Every structure is written in structure tokens, then in C-alpha cells.
């Protein structure tokens, strides 16, 4: 067991058992988060990113559940822990930030109280005064102005950016080893997004914690991630260090994502989109899940699911053509544009 990794997800399968059938949301995901690293998990809506995160935190709701696989955190398999053991880890060793700061805070409780609760539930608030002091200190660290006054504010009295800072304070107050951020900036405007990302990066570097950041926004990934996993229809289709991925995307889906980023100086009338839609997870196509939308797909792609193959030192891609195109770097951006 490698000790360089804080979190290792091994062959995770998570499904939603709906009335219409079984929806395979996470299909054999392998994902590793090294200590002190910010790892991104990217993909379109409905590709299984959030389900992966929820599987880690045990926040899956009926009728979703983990079918098989292991989630090793510091050598312990989170999927086999009792609820009580998991509660001890939640909030203290692993914490989570959610997408909607508007609805992720309880509207009827003071934000100070909600942050303090994390301390209290893990028995780390010696006295009321000390707990309050810690919370205010944390508020200051995450850049909440007038922290003392904000301690007794209610969520509706704060702006979206401030609320997300409160969420970060709540998630970080016990200095967890792993922070899972599920679309942390999607609900915020772009200037606030940059501030929040910078804050997360700084806090991460200060405390040596690892971050799994889940997003559909490649801009966010480029901003703070060091390593990226790309997910499509419940499968990891490519993973690579950040610069590798942006410079030499191997999988046609990743290439399509890259091509879809609007560019300054590009044609303002034309924005590239990947043709087609994400396949219905109830009826996944046989073979490569991207084959229906892939312009380079061949007969074989529609028959068998390709393995994740190593294309570079630390770069893996789930495409039969990944190796063949290794030398054709120039095609990276152009591939999807036919």
C-alpha cells in the first residue's frame, strides 16, 4: 500500500436504483489523491462527478448506493466503516464544500453557530468563549470582513461569496487532511470565483491538505489543480498532470472540452460544442461510452470498452487511438472541429 496517497479509490461502482432501471452513475472509477495536492475531477453535468464525491462522504441518498469497490483513506476502507466511525472522520479528517452556498447553510441558524458546530461535534471546543474565538479567527483567515459581527449573522444576511467563505471556514476549521469541493464556485460570479479559488489554494498550501475539486469548468482546473481526472458517463476517460492534459489531451472527449473553451481573440460568433448529448446512463452504449459523439470512432469503438492505457509517464487515456496519436501533438485542438 503506497503511503504517498491520502485517498485511493479502487474500482468504485455506484448506482442509482430508480423505478425505470439501474442507473450506473460511477463505473469502476480508480482515483488517487496524493498528499498535499489539488486534484481536479472534470466532466459534464450528469457524468458521475458528484456521485463519486458523495460516495466518498457517504452522502448518497436512497435509492443510490455503492455496489462495489474500495475507498481507502489513510489505509482505512471508508466503505466498510460503521456510521459512528465515519462520523468521526467526517468534518475532522475529510470535509466537504457544496455547490450552492445559498442553500447549503441552514437558513435559521447563525453562521457562527454552524461553524462552531463542527468544533463541538468533534469535542474540540473547550469552552464557549474559546470556540467563538476560534471561529472568528477562522472567519478572518478566510477573508470575511468584520468577522466578529458576522459571527452572529444569518445566512440570508450575507452575499453568495461570503456564504461560500463561511462554508470554507466550516470545512477548514479542524484542518482536515482532505477537502472535497463539489463545484465550489459554480454559483458565484467570476471575480468572486477567482478570490475563492485563490483562498482555497493558499489554505491548502499552508496546511498541507489535499483537495479534490469537482467542476465542469476547465478554467477552474487550470487555475488551481495539479492533476486532473476527466470523467464521462461514469467512466474515467483520461487522467494526467495539469500541463500534460492541457498541452496534449489524448482522449477525443477531453479534446472536445478544450475546444469548447471560449478564447479571447477567437471568433466571437462561433463557440465550439461537442455534438450530441451525454448518453442516458440507464442505457449506456456498448463499447466506448463516447463513441456515439466521437468523430474518430470506428467499428471497434462501438463494440468493446477500451482500457485506460498509459500514454505518457503519468498520463492515461481510455481510447484505442490514444497511443497511435502520441506523436501527432498538433492535432490536439483540431481533432474535434471537423
Amino acid at each position, binding site marked *: 500500500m503506497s503511503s504517498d496517497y491520502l485517498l485511493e479509490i479502487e474500482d468504485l461502482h455506484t448506482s442509482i436504483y430508480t423505478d425505470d432501471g439501474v442507473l450506473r452513475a460511477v463505473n469502476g472509477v480508480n482515483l488517487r489523491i496524493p498528499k498535499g495536492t489539488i486534484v481536479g475531477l472534470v466532466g459534464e453535468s450528469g457524468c458521475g462527478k458528484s456521485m463519486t464525491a458523495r460516495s466518498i462522504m457517504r452522502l448518497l441518498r436512497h435509492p443510490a448506493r455503492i455496489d462495489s469497490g474500495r475507498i481507502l483513506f489513510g489505509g482505512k476502507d471508508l466503505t466498510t466503516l460503521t456510521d459512528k466511525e465515519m462520523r468521526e472522520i467526517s468534518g475532522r479528517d475529510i*470535509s466537504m464544500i457544496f455547490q450552492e452556498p445559498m442553500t*447549503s447553510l441552514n*437558513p435559521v441558524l447563525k453562521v457562527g453557530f454552524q461553524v462552531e*458546530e463542527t468544533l463541538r*461535534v468533534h469535542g474540540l471546543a473547550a469552552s464557549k468563549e474559546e470556540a467563538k474565538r476560534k471561529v472568528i479567527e477562522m472567519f478572518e483567515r478566510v477573508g470575511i470582513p468584520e468577522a466578529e459581527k458576522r459571527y452572529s449573522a444569518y445566512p*440570508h*444576511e450575507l452575499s453568495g461569496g461570503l456564504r461560500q467563505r463561511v462554508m470554507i471556514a466550516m*470545512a477548514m476549521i479542524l484542518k482536515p487532511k482532505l477537502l472535497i469541493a463539489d463545484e465550489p464556485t459554480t454559483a458565484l460570479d467570476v471575480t468572486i470565483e477567482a478570490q475563492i479559488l485563490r483562498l482555497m489554494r493558499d489554505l491548502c498550501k499552508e496546511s498541507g491538505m489535499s483537495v479534490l475539486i469537482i467542476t465542469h469548468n476547465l478554467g477552474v482546473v487550470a487555475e488551481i489543480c495539479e492533476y486532473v481526472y476527466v470523467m464521462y458517463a461514469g467512466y474515467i476517460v483520461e487522467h494526467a498532470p495539469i500541463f500534460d492534459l492541457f498541452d496534449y489531451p489524448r482522449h477525443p472527449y477531453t479534446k472536445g472540452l478544450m475546444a469548447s473553451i471560449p478564447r479571447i481573440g477567437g471568433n466571437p460568433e462561433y463557440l465550439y460544442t461537442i455534438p450530441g448529448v451525454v448518453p442516458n446512463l440507464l442505457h449506456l452504449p456498448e463499447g466506448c461510452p463516447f463513441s456515439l459523439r466521437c468523430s474518430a470512432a470506428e467499428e471497434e469503438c462501438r463494440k468493446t470498452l477500451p482500457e485506460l492505457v498509459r500514454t505518457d509517464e503519468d498520463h492515461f487515456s481510455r481510447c484505442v487511438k490514444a497511443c497511435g496519436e502520441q506523436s501527432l501533438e498538433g492535432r490536439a485542438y483540431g481533432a474535434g472541429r471537423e
Partner: protein
Amino acid sequence: MKSVMKRLIGMIPVFIGVMLLIFVLLRVVPGDPVQVLLGEHYSQDTIDRLTKAMNLDKPVFEQFLLYLSGVFHGDLGMSYVMKKPVTSLIMEALPQTVILALMASTFAWFVGIGSGIIAAIKQNKAPDHIFMGFSLAGISVPVFMSALFLQYVFSFKLKLLPLSSDGSLKSLILPAIALGWNSAGSVARLTRSNLVDALQADYIDTAKAKGLTNRAVIFGHALRNSMLPVITLMAIQLSSMMSGAVVTESIFAIPGVGRLATNAIQTRDMPLLQGTVLLTTVMVIFGSLLADILYSVIDPRIRREA
């Protein structure tokens, strides 16, 4: 508290409006009160004197103003039939009604909210179905049925509790359960559905991610958010119980406001009827005020708007 004052002042027009409505309605109803009072064999002279004494010869609008000024002085007129001031009749009957209402609603809240919570936690499992079945029965079985059933089992068969009211608290237990049973059913259903909704909210995930126990998540986070509609319902129920439980009071022979109202209707006792309807109005107005105050205690978002 400033907003409470504002609300109170805002209620004065509502109050006067309702009184006007009652006043007009009761005068539209056929039947001359003087004749009701005197019977048939009296001289025209007597009738005229009485009409004058009761101010019935004055224009209706003036009658209303006279009545209104009486109300603000605590004078609701004399009961035609009982020959006593309406105010003192209501004051005599009110304690019984209030005690019954408080007992019944305490029962309804404990049973209703308690079983609602259990049903929500055990959603779609056996306890949920059992409690919701009971609550449906509570809502659909009319009070007189459950009252008779309770009387049969606990008074007649088991001889545990008195059959009808003797003024003691013990004798109010059965009526309170009969009256509260109905409310408990709707409180339970509303609590369940709102709690189920609240447990779906995003902040519940946040609370769980902190490592809170299920109990702390439910009682510390979900319950308070789910209580607003339930409080409205409970306030309405309480105010309607406070203004007299007509059926329950009749069955258990409780000398409360409900019985007073039935008597007033049967004997065409206009001032008394006006008095009891007025009491209902006041109770409903204060019930909704109480609900509003409780809202702002529970939900800070409402506090600021007020």
C-alpha cells in the same frame, strides 16, 4: 416588539369590520327580538316601550355605533333569555373552554408532532404507515364518533374516567383527547411531509458532512425548518378550540362557550350570539398574531422583513 404593536393596530379595522358583518347578518335573519322576548300576548304599548329600551327604534347604523361603543367598554349587552350581561356569561364559561382547549392542543401537539417525526424518519417503513394510518383515522372520524367511543371504553367499560364534566380536570381528559385526536391527525401529516422535505435540503448534507449524528441533524437542523406551516395549523386549531368546541362540549356536558353559543342559537338570543361570535373573531385574530410572532422567533428571515 414594534412590529407586534403594528400588527395589533392593524387588527382594529379587521375587528370592526367583522363586528359590522355579524351585526348586519343577525339583523337580516327573520324574527323580531322583542317578540321573542315577550311571547305573543302583550299590548302594543309594552312592545313599544321595550323596543325603545333596547334601542331598536333607532336607525340600524346608530344601533351599531351604540353596540360598538358598548363593546369597547366591555359591555356586550344583556342576554334576552338569561337576563344577565353577556360579558359575565362568557367570562363564566370561558375558563372551562380554555382549559379544554389547552389540554386538547397539548395532546394534539405531542402526539401529532411526535408521530410526524417518527413517520418522517422511518419514511415508507412500517412505523410510517402505522402512524399515517392512525392520523388518517384521526382526521376522518368526526369528533362525536371518537367522543362516544372514548366514553364507551373508558367510562362505561373500564370506569376509569367520568362520563361527563363535573368541573374537575380529570373529567376533561376524555373530551380533551376526543377534541385533540382530530387535530393530532392533521398536525402529524403536516409535520411528516414538511420534515421529509426539509431532510432533502442541501444544508442537511452540510450538517452530515460535519459528522453530526442523525439525531442532531434531525432535531438541530431539519425540524426547525419544517415547523413553520405546522405552527400556522396549530395556531388556527388553538384559536378555533378557544372559541368553543360546540360538539365536544355538548357531548360531555361541559358548561363552556360552545354550549353558550348553541343555546343562543336555539333561543334566538341575539346579544349572546353576537358575544360568542365576537369571541371567536378575537381568538382567530390573536391566533394568527401568535403564529406570526412564533414565525419570527423560528425563522430569522421573517424577523427582518417585519
